[in-house]
Each structure stands twice: as C-alpha cells, then as structure tokens.
C-alpha cells in the first residue's frame, strides 16, 4: 500500500488520530485541567472538518472493503459538520463540574462512533458495514447512559444497547442468508446474484429491519423515543442527527447498489413503511409535552419523509435524500440546540415551561421557530426545499397517493411543530423563563444552524453539487 492509499482513508485516519490524542491528553492532563480537552478537541475537529473539503481521489482499498468517492466524502463531510455543531453545542454542558471527570470519554466515544460511521459509509462489503454499524452503535449506548446519576439516562442506555443488539442480531441473520445464497460478502459480487426468491427476500427484510432500527422506522422505532428522552440532550441530538444521517446514507447506498436488482420489491416495502412511519411518528408527536421526546417523535416522522426520497431509486432521489439530510442536520440541531441551551441554564424541558419565552428571550425563540419551521417544511427556510424535493422524488416514480399521504402528514406535523411556537410566542405565563444570556459557543452553534437553514435552501449550487455526485439504482 502506498501513501496515497492512506490519503484515501484520511478522514478515518485523522479521526483515529484525534481519538488517540484524546486518550493521551486525558492521561497527560491533571484532573483539574481536563476541561482543556474540550477546546483542544474542538479545534482539532474543526481542522478535520475543514480538511474534509480538500478534494480527494476516488479509490478502492483492501480488496474492495473500503470505497472512497466524492459522494462518500460529501456524506462524511456532512456528518463532520453535524458533529462539529454537536461539539460546539455541548461545550457548556460538558464543562459543567459534574462532567469534569469524563470529558475525554465523551469526545472519545463520539469520535469513535464517527469513525464507525465513516467506515460504514465507505464499506464495500457486509463485514465492514456490520463492523462500522456496531462501532457506531455500541459506544452510543454508553453515551446515552452518560448521566449515570439519572435513572432516565440509565434506562436509555439499557434500552438502546439491548434493542440494538437485538436488531443487529436480526440484521446479521439477514446478512448470513445473503452470504449463504450469494456466496460473497462483497457488495460488488453480491449484486448479480440477488433476485427476489423467498430466501433473499427474507434476508433483505431482516437486513432492512436492522437498518430500519437505526433510522428508527416504524415498527422498529420504539426504542428511539425513550432513548432520546433519557439521554443527555447533546447525545440525543447526536443520535437523532448524526447516527440517523449516517444510517440513511449507507442504507441508501446499499439499496441503490446491492439491492438494485430487487428494487421493485424494496420500493413496496418502503412504500408501506414510510406511510407507517410518518403517520405513527406524527400521531405520537402530537401528544408530547417533553421537548426531547417531542423532537424524538418528530425525527421519527422525518425518517418517514426521507424514505420518500429513497423510494425514488434514482439519482434524483438520492440527491433529495442527501440534500434533505443536510438540511435536517441544521434544522434538528437548531431545535435541539435551543432545547439544550434552555435545559442547561434552567433544567426545564417541558413545553409549558416555554410559555412566554419569546418575551424574555426573543433570539432563542426565533432560532427555535426557524428550526421548527424548517422541520415542518415552511419557506423561506431550507426545510421547505428539502421536503419539496423529497415529495418530488416520490412523485417522480408516480407514487402520487404516497405523496398525498405524506403531505397530509406534513400538515399534521405542522400542527405539532406550531405547538412550541405557540407556547413561546402566544401563550402567556406568570413565571416565564427569565432572561439569560447564553454563552458564546451556544450562540455560535445556533448561528451556524440558522445560517445553514437559510443558505442551504436558497443556494442551489449545493443541491446541484450533490446531484452531480449522486447516482441512481
């Protein structure tokens, strides 16, 4: 292997490097100075995010186990940006004294899961895919249980690790059948041998169930709400954005490549699942009072919308999916960022606590409103564009009734996205959350989100760029 081969893996390698630096730093810094790791990691990660944009060659490594292309780089960059925002947003939270002794672990675990995701996205065979998936999941369970002294956090941890183990077992069973029926674990070799016989269908469904778990599609979503609610907010936002985003990426890629011979079948599967997901996600979101749980169900419903793009199975569909995920990163992180900011200062997470919030904290409220509008798909923020293209993708295949159901669901979703807006702007409160000044990092994080939400929509160049890189199944 030449040096240039390593350059193909630069993102993974750099992340590993960071992981090592963090480990070393933890050992090197005295307990009182552990918090320095925070800024250090931030800067390092910032550097990596920037480095991600350096053009890289296309290539295949390890006999096909590792693929690198502009598309995967794009996906990784999106994830990097998301993680960077998460890091920025968790700045003030992680610096709290009660977290002081586990700062390094926090970053290390997130970075290692990110490594997992990167490998997963770049994987060229089921083994790497599986490994990446596990690497992206197992440490997150620990992160969910990060607040060890909170029952809910512990509960979130156990629910996540056990359900993910179940799902990965099912997924593995599916993979084993695929291996058995095709004789290879390499994607490239599997493709020509895939057809829609019952065994492979069964294998696909089991595989799909495992993936659906990660993306939190109904009926494989039940863990999500509880875990999202119990985990510390920044972990929740990481889970709902980065984890889900990465899973969506690889899911799309695998469907479009490996399972392209049975596209007709998986389109039907997705048809049903997307309707279920949107509807159930929405119906549950309607009633939520806890903001995190609320956003959890909202992100379940969003996953249903994402399927509309995947179902297209063409270049257009993939473009829409990636574009939407990019927008979703900003929107969801914006919303979570505000929830986190409020929670960090006041510890309040219930919707009724937000009553009258605009009158005391107008800026945060506006960010929240924009984020929610973006999630709901209301112009002029980017969510509108994202949703529109997703709907267009499904329509592209002639699934007009699906689009119809989806837009009706979008309308329902608008209802609950307006609930926090109503709380903040319309409802009056005797004891509103008092004015507070969030720290610079929080504001920076939110600023990036807002900028992202505004720019990504109108800047069609981004869309066109993604389209150039996307491919159809």
């Amino acid at each position, binding site marked *: 292997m030449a040096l240039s081969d390593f350059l193909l893996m630069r993102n993974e390698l750099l992340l590993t490097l960071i992981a090592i630096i963090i480990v070393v730093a933890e050992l090197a810094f005295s307990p009182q100075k552990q918090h320095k790791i925070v800024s250090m990691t931030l800067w390092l990660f910032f550097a990596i995010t920037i480095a991600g944009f350096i053009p890289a060659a296309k290539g295949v490594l390890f006999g096909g186990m590792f693929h690198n292309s502009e598309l995967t780089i794009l996906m990784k960059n999106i994830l990097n940006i998301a993680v960077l925002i998460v890091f920025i947003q968790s700045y003030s939270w992680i610096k709290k004294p009660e977290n002081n002794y586990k700062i390094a672990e926090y970053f290390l675990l997130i970075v290692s899961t990110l490594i997992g995701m990167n490998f997963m996205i770049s994987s060229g065979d089921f083994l790497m895919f599986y490994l990446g998936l596990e690497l992206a999941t197992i440490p997150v369970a620990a992160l969910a249980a990060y607040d060890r002294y909170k029952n809910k956090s512990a509960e979130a941890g156990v629910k996540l690790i056990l359900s993910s183990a179940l799902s990965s077992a099912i997924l593995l069973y599916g993979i084993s059948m695929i291996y058995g029926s095709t004789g290879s674990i390499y994607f490239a070799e599997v493709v020509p041998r895939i057809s829609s016989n019952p065994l492979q269908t069964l294998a696909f469904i089991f595989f799909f169930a495992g993936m659906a778990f990660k993306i939190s599609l109904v009926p494989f979503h039940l863990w999500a709400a509880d875990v999202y609610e119990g985990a510390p907010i920044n972990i929740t936002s990481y889970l709902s954005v980065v984890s889900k985003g990465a899973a969506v990426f690889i899911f799309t890629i695998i469907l479009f490549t490996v399972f392209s011979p049975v596209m007709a079948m998986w389109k039907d599967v997705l048809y049903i699942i997307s309707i279920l997901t949107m509807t159930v996600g929405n119906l549950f979101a309607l009633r939520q009072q806890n903001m995190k749980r609320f956003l959890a169900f909202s992100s379940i419903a969003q996953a249903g919308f994402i399927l509309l793009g995947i179902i297209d199975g063409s270049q257009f569909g993939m473009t829409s999916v990636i574009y939407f995920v990019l927008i979703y990163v900003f929107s969801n992180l914006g919303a979570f960022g505000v929830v986190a900011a409020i929670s960090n200062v006041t510890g309040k997470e219930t919707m009724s606590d937000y009553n009258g919030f605009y009158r005391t904290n107008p800026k945060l409220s506006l960010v929240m409103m924009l984020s929610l509008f973006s999630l709901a798909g209301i112009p002029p923020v980017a969510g509108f564009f994202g949703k529109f293209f997703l709907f267009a993708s499904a329509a592209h295949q002639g699934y007009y009734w699906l689009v119809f159901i989806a837009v009706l669901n979008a*309308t329902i979703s608008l209802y609950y996205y307006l609930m926090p807006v*109503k709380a903040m702007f319309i409802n009056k409160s005797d004891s509103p959350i008092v004015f507070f000044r969030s720290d610079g990092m929080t504001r920076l994080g939110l600023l990036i989100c807002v900028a992202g939400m505004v720019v990504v929509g109108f800047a*069609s160049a981004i869309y066109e760029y993604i389209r150039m890189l996307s491919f159809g199944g």
Partner: protein
Amino acid sequence: MNVLNLFILIPVLTMISIILAKEIRYVRVIAAIGMGCQLVLAAVLIFTYLAIRRAGNTDEMVLTQTLNWFPSLNITYAIGVDGISVAMIGLTSIVIFAGIFASWEVSDLTKEFFVSLILLSTGVFGFFISLDLFTMFLFYEVAVIPMYLLIGIWGSGPKEYSAMKLTIMLMGGSALLLVGILGIYFYSASDGGPLTFNILQIAKVHIPLVVQKFFFPFTFIGFGVLGALFPLHTWSPDGHASAPTAVSMLHAGVLMKLGGYGCFRIAMFLLPEAAHEMAWIFIILTATSVVYGAFGAIMQKDLKYINAYSSVSHCGLVLFALLMMNKTAMDGAIIQMISHGIMTALFFALIGMIYGRTHTRYIDEMGGLMKIIPFLAVCYVIGGLASLGLPGFSGFVAEMTIFVGAFQHADTFHRIVTIVVCSSIVITAVYILRVIGILLLGPIKNNNFLSFKDATWFEKISTVTLIAGITGIGLAPLWLSNMISGSLSHIIERLTM
C-alpha cells in the same frame, strides 16, 4: 433591472429597516413609507403595463425575467405579469397600505407585528409575479404562515384555536396543491420537451386527459380551500373573527384571492380539458357557496362572522365565475376579486375601528353609532352598499359582468345555476341592511358610547384609500376590464382548445 423585482425587494428592505429600527415609533412610519412606495410602484406598474400594451406588445406575459435556480430540475426564478396579475398587485398594494394605517395603534410587539404583516405581503406579491410553479408555491406558503403568528399573538377571542385551524386547513390545502403541482411538473414533458415548472411552457404542452383529470381536483381544491370553497371554508369565519384588523383585511382582501388566482392560473389554465370535464362539480359547490354563505351571514351576531360569511359568498362567486370559462365571466371574476378585496378590507378595517372603541363585536350590543361616529358609520354604509352590489361601486361592476357572462353560456345547466347565484344579491341586501339597521341606525343603546371619538387621521387614511379604490373601479371600470380581458384571451384560447 426588472421593475417587478422591486415588489419583493421593497418589502424585504422594509422588514430589515423595521428590525433595525431603534425606536418603536419609527416602526410604523417605516412600514407606512415602505408600503407607500409599494403603492406608488403599483401605480407605476399599471401605467407601464398599459403603455406596453398600447405599444402593441401582445405577449402573454410582459416584463418577464428568468433566472435559473435549480437547473437540474428546471426550477427557475421566473417573473412576469399580465393584466390580471397587474390588477392583483394593485389590489394588494392598496390593501396593505390601508392595513398599515389600520394597525397604527398596535402596541404589543409592534416590530414583530409589522414584520409579519409585511412578510405576508411579500409572499403575496411574489405569488402574483411568479411564473414558475415552484416559486409560486414557495411564495404561497410564505404568505400563509405568518398568519398563524399574526392571529395567534395579536388576535382576540379564541385566537389560538382559530389560528391553528386556519393554518392547518390552509396548509392542508397546500398539501393537495403540492400533489397537483408535482403531477403537472412530471407530466410537463408529455410532448417530449424537458420537465419544467414554468407556467408558460407547460401551457404549450398537451397533458393527457386522464392525467389532467387526476390532478385537477387536487390543484383546484388546493387553491379552493384558500378561496373558501364550500365545504372547506370553515377556517374563514373563525380565522377572521379572531384575527387583528389588518390581518383580517389582508387575509380576506388579498390572501383569499390567491386561491382564486391560483385556481385559474394553475388549475384551469394548465389542466384545461379536465377543467371542462369536471367543472360541473365545482360549479355546484361554488353556487352552493354563494347562496349558503349569504344565508349563513343573515343570522350571525358577530360583525366579523357576518363579514366572513359574506366573504364566503363573494369568493364563491369568484370561483363560480371562473368555472364558467368564458371571457366575460372570468373578467368579472377578476374584477370581483379586486372589488371584494378592497371592500372586505374596508369592512374589516371598520369593524376593527369600531371594536377598538366599543370592545364588542356583537351587533346586539351596539346601536345608533351613526350619531356618535358618523365618519366611520358612513364609511360602513358605503362598504355595505358596495357589498350589496350598488352601481357606482366596484361590486356592481363585478357582479354584473359575472352574471351577464355566466348567462351567455350555451348550456342550460349553467344558466339555471346562474339564476340561482343571482339570487344572492337579495340575500346580501338582507344581511347588509340588517347590520346597518341594527348597528349604525336606530337609537343609541349604550350611553357609554357617547364618549367615543370619531376617526383619527390614520384611520381616515386607511378607509379613504379603500373607498377611493371601490368607487374608482365602480365609476370607471372600463380600463380595468379591458386590461383584464385583454390578458384573458390567452387563457380562454387554451380553455376552449
């Protein structure tokens, strides 16, 4: 630069200036100046347009400009106007101008109020100048959503409920619309060309009838919800009742017109054959709307409800006339949109002003206002007379054009329905006179009312602007009618293809 861009640019700049304004009292001045510019600009546009037409330009759209936006999907920022959109822009600028003055005294969160209001108008302006389905849809949603906050924050009564209902129903409508738009887009290549969102290009394409029939209901009902199509009008009474003055004005005056405009500019123009085949269903619905809305208004006790039902009736007439699909009726429909827009804005402005004094909107609790606040009362009477279609006001022009046009239809069904619809002029008279009788005339019911002051200067500006609009069109309708019907010929041509 294309003058049309200014219609978006000015509101945006106004919004920015408002946000940057240091003191609250500057806010409304800035808003007034901005929207004043908009009004002047609209006048300029009308003259420009007429000059262009006089110069012999017979293009379907003039002042066009196209910028590629999402090239791979052929989404463009395409703008352009014909006589109809020019007229609608004129309407919008009048109403928003009056609206600013009608909300001069908003004291709670003033900045936010004006920003939302102007954002709404931006959406409306954008909608009317767009030639691209995508941007049109975008502006449409921009116009609808500030409504939620405007009603929710500054409204009265069960405002949260109404705001939510209105938003959800309108967004439900736009959900249908979205399906329609996507359908049109993906079949815009039926003749082998590229997929396109551009209305003018789609209009050249022949979309298969089966497809048209599938998407026409989506599109038409989608816009119809906003145009208060029976039975999807119920957001309107609640929404209007709870909305603050300027919002009711803009909503009933302008936003509901988006529905009518969209119905023919998109649903009927782009799907003409389906429009022909399916019109009868909607004709029955709209005719029901007209009569039903009017009857509904008779027994209401709340001023805003009366006006809301009256809007249902009048907007039903708009859609009804559009569905008649001949030049005269459609011409009437457009005039009716403008006429009703100004008229109902006037009503809502006055209701707001009266409410601001009496703090009630129940007509039973008021009486004899003519003696106390003669200026407003007279304006109300004028509005009422315009509403019941008195000659000399715009309502008459519109209604008569519609009736005559609709009656020219060769089909007996259409003529019979027209006669049914005509009966609304009597019912309208009943509820208008009932209100005037109870509210303004008769003895003074409540002695506390004696202390009221008549209209302030800004209220006068607001109402006089609107009345000028009503009577202007009412007395000299020919130029407007010609401007509109000139542009209609392209549409009629396609509809009768």
